[in-house]
């Protein structure tokens, strides 16, 4: 199993979710995060006080997948999160030691396989 961690633009989130849905990726967690990835700072002014917003808003997706699902997941995100400007984000693929499904106690492949789909070996 792998954990796919993607940091994407908030305004691309809906497109990413749609693309993941099309790729049959069903289990995921999203978090609103802030980060800095070399994009140009946003400048704001409050009563003559000018500030550079060094951290920009991003969305982080955590998706636990079985090995053969890694490629379609990554492809879906690459396609949907892309705008071509600096700040589009990153995708990390991490090895996962162990997965448990809390409801049933199922482990590993079975735990990351959606209900009703037979687990691949």
């Amino acid at each position, binding site marked *: 199993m792998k954990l796919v961690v993607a940091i994407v633009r908030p305004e691309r989130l809906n497109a990413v979710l749609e693309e993941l849905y099309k790729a049959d990726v069903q289990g995921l967690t999203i978090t609103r995060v802030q980060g800095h990835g070399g994009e140009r700072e946003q400048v*704001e002014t409050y*009563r*003559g*006080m000018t500030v550079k917003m060094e951290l920009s808003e991003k969305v982080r997706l955590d998706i636990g997948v079985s090995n053969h699902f890694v490629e379609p997941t990554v492809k879906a995100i690459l396609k949907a999160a892309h705008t071509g400007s600096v700040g589009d984000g990153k995708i990390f693929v991490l090895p996962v030691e162990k997965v448990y499904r809390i409801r049933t106690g199922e482990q590993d492949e079975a735990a990351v396989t959606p209900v009703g789909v037979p687990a691949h070996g």
Partner: protein
Amino acid sequence: MNQGDIAWMLTATALVLLMTPALAFFYGGLVRGKNALNTMMMSFVALGFVGVLWALAGYSLALSPGGPFVGGLSHVLLRGVTLEASGAIPHLLFMAFQGTFAIITAALISGAIVERMRFSAYLVFISLWMLTVYAPVAHWVWAADGWLYNWGALDFAGGTVVHINAGVAAFVAALVLGPRKDYARQAFLPHNVPFTLLGAGLLWFGWFGFNGGSALGANTSAALAFVTTMLAPAATLVVWTLLDLVRNRKATAVGAATAIVVGLVAITPAAGHVSPISAILLGGIAAVPSYYALLFRVRTRLDDSLDVVAAHGLGGMVGALLTGVFSEKAWSGVADGLLFGNPGQLWIQTAAVLATIVYSAAVSFTLLKVIGAVMPLRALASEEALGLDVSQHGEEAYAEGDGAILVLPDRETPTAPAFASATAQGGRS
């Protein structure tokens, strides 16, 4: 007395009272979220403390017959404040209307010391300030035996008494308290600009009572003051927006809210004294000094956090002086200003402004030093870092409630969460 006058003044009193909660929103939106309640409470408590003190003693010191500098004690505890006529309205209603002015003036000062002043020290300060600074200055300008009144100083609704007075006290308070921790090293951003816009809108609404009500009856003077109160801030907003666009190519929302307040402050002393077209000019001109004062202030060590000096102090001064320029007897029936052949009025206005500045600065400074000798004025640095909502009030403006454990009234110590005690036992075994 007629019902029309009484009806309008009842309404106007309620409108001015609403300005203090409006100010709470205006200020509350401009601070960081961890200080939102504290900032709003600084306005709200004035409704209670200043409101009660006004009835007990403030009204008498301000508006009962006395000397040229302060009123007497004849109306202490509202003695003799009855339903008999005072002008066109019941004396009691006049007292209440004036009370709403004392409340907002005291609350205005809080903008200079938010995010760091101890709440109890603030309560003592605004209570004593109303009695020793606001009441005497109100007497000078509005009482029949006040020295500025008799000298012919024009202050329709409180440009000197309310705005210059509060602005100067704010300047002194910011100086005495010192800047917030991390001021000028870290950016403090407004946490809720929509609150600030809401506050500005409600202030404008309430200000129709503030200026329109200062005619003390439902009459033509009230109509003039009402219309100038509509036009002057509109002009300030236009000029401010253009200045923003020229300087930054962006019209800011905080700027728009500020502009409205500056325009309202500037028209306050002039409201019933100038023509509607003069009001537009006055409002437009008033935008310029306050706009540049804001830009200048952020580069100084003076942490007048919400710019009370630039908006109320400077806006009030510009308004008070321009009243001496634009006043027009043909409209007000009172006095002409510089443009209408009476240059002397401008000198009277200047003297009134200077007298207010000197007195307010001296007494506010003394008060803060005396209070500071008895109790700490500032919250601890650690309390400031945590936020004054939790440290001063034991509340949060935006509590999530996650991880909050209910302390049951019959237990002395909070129940530890089950997993924490299990882990602790596991660690020992």
